[in-house]
Each structure stands twice: as structure tokens, then as C-alpha cells.
């Protein structure tokens, strides 16, 4: 019985730890105009990598998206995000904050692309 209680408590602790970790994730998703070439996207990655709060950067030309995952416990003001992109030569359309990690954002984009591909290959019944 004691053994079962121990396992239950440990599982609970693990769940709390995972939940706490998930809540720590803080990403910024930015819709950007002018994202057309890989060289330009390299400049954006390089610019955000110099910011001390940046954990990782994702650029998607297809989704016109720049996503920045911040280090736990840090923040980057919208004005700063905007300034970095303007200094890199781009125009910001909108900034959103999310608790999704870059891996989750990437997964969402992949899923969206797959869904579009599947939809394109579905037979149409008139």
C-alpha cells in the first residue's frame, strides 16, 4: 500500500512539474511582410539571437511568421520585437503572445500543411 501511495505522489509531483514547465513557456508570434527569401530570414534569426531573452527563433516564409521562444522568466516588449524586425528591414503586421513552444508551433504548421495537401487530394463529389 505504501508503495502505491509513493508512486501516486511521485506521479502527481511529475505532473505538477510538467504543468509548471508548460506554463513557463512564453513565445511571441509575429506576422511579417516581406518574408520571401532564405537569406533575409537568416538576418532575422541572427538579429533575434542577439537578444538576451531569446531561447530559439523560428522563421516560416510560407506562413509569413517569425516566432521567438523566450527563456523562462524573461520577456521582450512588443516595441523591442517591432524594432528588431524594422532594423532587419521588415514590416510588422501583428504581434501575438502564446504559451506554445516553437516545437508546438512548428508541429501546428506541419499539420496545417498536411491537411491542405490531404484536402487537395480528396476526390470531389458533385
Amino acid at each position, binding site marked *: 500500500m505504501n508503495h502505491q501511495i509513493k508512486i501516486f505522489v511521485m506521479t502527481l509531483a511529475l505532473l505538477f512539474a510538467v504543468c509548471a514547465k508548460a506554463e513557463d513557456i512564453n513565445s511571441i508570434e509575429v506576422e511579417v*511582410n*516581406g518574408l*520571401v*527569401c*532564405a*537569406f*533575409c*530570414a*537568416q*538576418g*532575422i*534569426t*541572427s*538579429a533575434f539571437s542577439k537578444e538576451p531573452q531569446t531561447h530559439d527563433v523560428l*522563421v*516560416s*516564409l*510560407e506562413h*509569413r511568421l517569425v516566432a521567438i521562444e523566450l527563456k523562462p522568466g524573461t520577456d521582450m516588449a512588443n516595441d523591442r520585437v517591432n524594432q528588431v524586425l524594422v*532594423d*532587419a*528591414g*521588415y*514590416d510588422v*503586421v501583428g504581434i501575438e503572445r502564446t504559451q506554445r513552444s516553437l516545437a508546438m508551433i512548428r508541429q501546428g504548421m506541419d499539420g496545417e500543411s498536411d491537411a491542405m495537401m490531404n484536402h487537395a487530394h480528396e476526390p470531389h463529389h458533385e
Partner: protein
Amino acid sequence: MNRLSLLGRASGAACALALALSSIAVTADARPVTYTGGRVLVAEAYPDSLAWRYGYSGSFRWSASVGGLYVDGFEGQKTLDIHYVRGARLLKRWNWPTAQANVFVWGGAGHARVASQSDVSAHAGFQADFETRRIYTSLVSEHHEGPNWRYRTDTVALGLAPYEHDFEKTALWVVLKGMRSTHTRDDEPKSAVMLRFFNPKWWLEVGVQDNGDLLGNVMFNF
């Protein structure tokens, strides 16, 4: 003059790059300014010329470069060998949801050797481009001049991507080019079809000119 002796004139790291491409001749319309802290190394070889440039962009608006240009068959049988420093500026950029357009200008000065005579030289250039993920167009014009000589090149390009690429993946483009150089052995306009491969770190173009000469260019982005 054969290609090996042309390569012997090229200098520095660009020489090594050109050597790697010695079986082809090379051409480029890479952007003269990239992004803050961006460094590029470009090596180009045309059938009658070789060029290289190493540039540093202080911001997306300006860059400074050193470079060299060697032309064989200049004003008939002469050779033209230029080494220069230059500054480039992005005059205007338009960002749209799925496209971007730019106008760049640049100018510089250096040392030129025409046949065996040394001169100072100056040059100025202009580039306008428009790009989406499927279409690329550009117009590039560059003029070099010394006390008793001048050399000019104009290039128009239309690129089409067979599929939409994304960041971190190597993109493929088919690029059609029209080129003209003045005061060379052959001032006639030429056309070329090129295959362009590029990703965030490098770019390679290879192709063939209408007279059968092979072309290509290589660029590294640091």
C-alpha cells in the same frame, strides 16, 4: 588566354572558390546589402571575366566591400584588372505580404591595370529587384571608369521557382538572364539559362549561355 591563367589573376579566397569552379564560368546578381552583421563572399566567372567580392553589412541599409574584377579581351586584346573598395546603400525597400522589392546603389574607387599600365579607377552601380517565393526579377547595371577607359555591364534576370521553398530548405530556381558588357571582345547582348540553388548559408548558380559557354556563380553568407 586560357581559364587557368585567368584564375591565376584572381586573388585571395575568391581564387580558391573560382578554382573549385574552374570547369565552368560564373555570374551573379546577389544583393549588395544583406542584414546587420551579415558577411558575404561572392565569386563569379563569366567566359571572359572573373570577379570576387567580400562584403560586410553594417545594417540592412548599407554595406562596405572589397573586391576584384578581371576582364580578358578588354578593348580588343587587352586585359583589365581592377581591385576596389566600395560602399553600397539600400535606397528604398517595399515589403508586401508575399513580395519584396528593393533599389540599391553603390560606388567605389580602386586601382586598375589596363594591359600593363596602372591607373586609378572609380565605379558606380545600381540594382532594382522584385521577388516573391515563386518569381524573381532584377536589373543590375555597373560602370567602371579610369582616365582613359571605361567598362560597363548590364544584366536583367527573370527567375521562376518550380515550387515554393521555405527557410532552412534549399530552394531551386530557373533563371533566365540577358547580359551585355561594353568595350569587350564581343559587345553583343547574350542570354543565359541558369539553375539556382540556395539556402540561408550559400548560393550556387550554374547554367549555359546562348553561345554554349557554361556559367555559374557561388556565394557564401556568414
